[in-house]
């Protein structure tokens, strides 16, 4: 399309008057109909898919969660809030909540801090910038399941590379499966590995938008690079940091694929559920245990958790920068 074919719209429109309303032509009526109806036609595919497979399921989850709902027996019995009452008294559920929050913290905090450092490094003038960026974003394009398998093997107790490396510096082998906290570290490291580069690029884009005069003025005043980083870069990045924290919260609380494959594809999250997440708990009860009502209740509680934690993190980050 050459831009030269573009006429000045105002003048052109003046030369072509609208057809008189008394004699609407077939063409004119069609064009008017097109203007009126087409926008709705264009957006309708999205709404069709969304209403059937997005909005309806959301409400339906609530409905199912108020029932004793089994597929094999066809049982469908109204329970009211019974599922929720049971859930709140269910130790295995709370165990999964604690696991999820623990792994969420272990995967989000280092991830975002490392991403900040990496972005700060990438923001310098250097050779091979594209290569570094490519390398750091490469984890994002690997399949989550594949990576989980690779990491699980790296963390193997007897012949895993991580324990071998630790052995080189004199550390005894760690049981990355049976020990609850170490298993969290292992699973979280997969998440960290995958998302650090992605967040680094987002921070880098935001850093490049910070006016350079700020740094130059600070340099004249004798502020060190480290000081510039904490006093200029980080405060200026606050909106971006809030964005990444919210995205990580939504993703982190739904953690599923990595811990499932860390447990060889089982839903129990280790023999004593040491790394079972809420999403796994939901899956175990519904799809494996044929208790869809209970599973749906877990799904709703998870949804509420995500909303609450997103809000808390939002307020926390905003507060933190606000004391400047």
């Amino acid at each position, binding site marked *: *399309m050459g831009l030269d074919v*573009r*006429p*000045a719209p105002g003048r052109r*429109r003046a030369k*072509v008057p609208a057809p008189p309303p008394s004699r609407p032509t077939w063409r004119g009526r069609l064009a008017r109909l*097109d*203007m009126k109806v*087409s*926008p709705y036609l*264009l*957006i309708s*595919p*999205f*709404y069709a898919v*969304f209403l059937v*497979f*997005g909005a*309806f*399921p959301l409400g*339906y*989850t609530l409905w*199912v969660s108020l029932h004793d709902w089994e*597929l094999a027996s066809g049982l469908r019995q109204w329970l009211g809030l019974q599922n929720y009452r049971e859930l709140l008294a269910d130790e295995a559920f709370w165990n999964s909540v604690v696991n999820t929050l623990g792994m969420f913290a272990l995967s989000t905090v280092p991830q975002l801090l490392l991403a900040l450092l990496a972005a700060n490094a*990438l923001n*310098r*003038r250097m050779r091979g910038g*594209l290569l570094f960026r490519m*390398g*750091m*974003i490469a984890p994002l*394009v*690997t*399949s989550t*399941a*594949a*990576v989980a*398998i*690779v990491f699980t*093997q790296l963390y193997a107790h007897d*012949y895993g590379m991580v324990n*071998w490396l630790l052995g080189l510096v004199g550390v005894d082998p760690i049981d990355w499966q049976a020990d609850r906290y170490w298993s969290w570290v292992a699973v979280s490291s997969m998440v960290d590995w995958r998302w*650090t*580069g*992605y967040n680094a690029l*987002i921070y880098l884009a935001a850093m490049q938008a910070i006016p350079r005069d700020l740094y*130059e003025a600070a340099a004249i005043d004798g502020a060190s690079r480290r000081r510039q980083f904490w006093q200029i870069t980080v405060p200026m990045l606050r909106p971006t940091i809030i964005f990444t924290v919210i995205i990580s919260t*939504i993703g982190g609380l*739904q953690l*599923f694929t990595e811990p499932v494959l860390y447990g*060889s594809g*089982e839903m129990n999250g280790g023999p004593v559920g040491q790394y079972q997440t809420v*999403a796994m708990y*939901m899956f175990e009860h519904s799809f494996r245990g044929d208790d*869809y009502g209970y599973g*749906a209740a877990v*799904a*709703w509680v*998870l*949804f509420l958790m995500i909303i609450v934690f997103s809000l808390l993190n939002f307020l926390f980050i905003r507060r933190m920068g606000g004391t400047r």
Partner: protein
Amino acid sequence: MTAPAPFNVRRAGRFRGLWEASPLTYLTLVIALVLSVFPIYWMLVVATRTNEIVSDVPPPVTPGTHFGENVERLFANPDAFFATGLVNSAIAASVITISTVFFASLAGFAFAKLRFRGRNALLLTIIATMMIPVQMGVIPLYLIMIKLGWNGELQSIIVPFLVTGFGVFMMRQYAASAVPDELIEAARVDGCSTFRIYWSVVLPALRPAAGVLGLFTFMQTWNEFMWPLAVLEPDNPTVQLSIKQLANAHFQDYTLMFAGTAVATLPLLVVFIVFSRQIIGGIMEGAIKA
């Protein structure tokens, strides 16, 4: 959307030292690079070896020569249905990518450039849908699939994801700035219908954003795990489920598993290497919510 500002060379003179990468910077980046790439490299190393190396100390760090053999065993494995998995994943990811780009750009164009009643309210609902976690809907979605008789069938992992709110929103943002109103006006005056305008004026202008959306949609669909696990059966899997099946075996055959992960990852790696500039650009423009 903020475009990344290029380094300002003119001003660099006096404050050159302020922006020059120090050796420490390079060291940080090299470590980050090694950590990022090593697990992928390790995947290839194990996939090309035999099972004896699993207990080797120190572990081998160079690729071997047994990749072909491992891939053969992979496709012959009776539990994984690996070939079926690959084909299913390829079909699902391709169909969803094409339809997402098409429907999202249609709707994005309408929201950005056409005037109609309820436009802002409808756009708000789209933004709201972006906040809803996928897992919320898995159980009822499964119940719907059973009603339709689609459980276990390939369409169950395709139809619900034909277009996403995120895609619509992304295309709207891009269309708002990339398509001049005058161009649309001109086409209208020339007697083009709305769809014709979309097809010959808007879609060509949206090509860069459509490409990025397509890439990310493909990768996301290819990697999808929970929903296929819920709705498909082991004998008609996606490639990710095939991998899970290998990991689930009583005897953990590492080279087999790693060959599986390598074959499942290679298509994405190829896409990545070919389009890395666009992917990096897409993330940096804030266009991507992966």
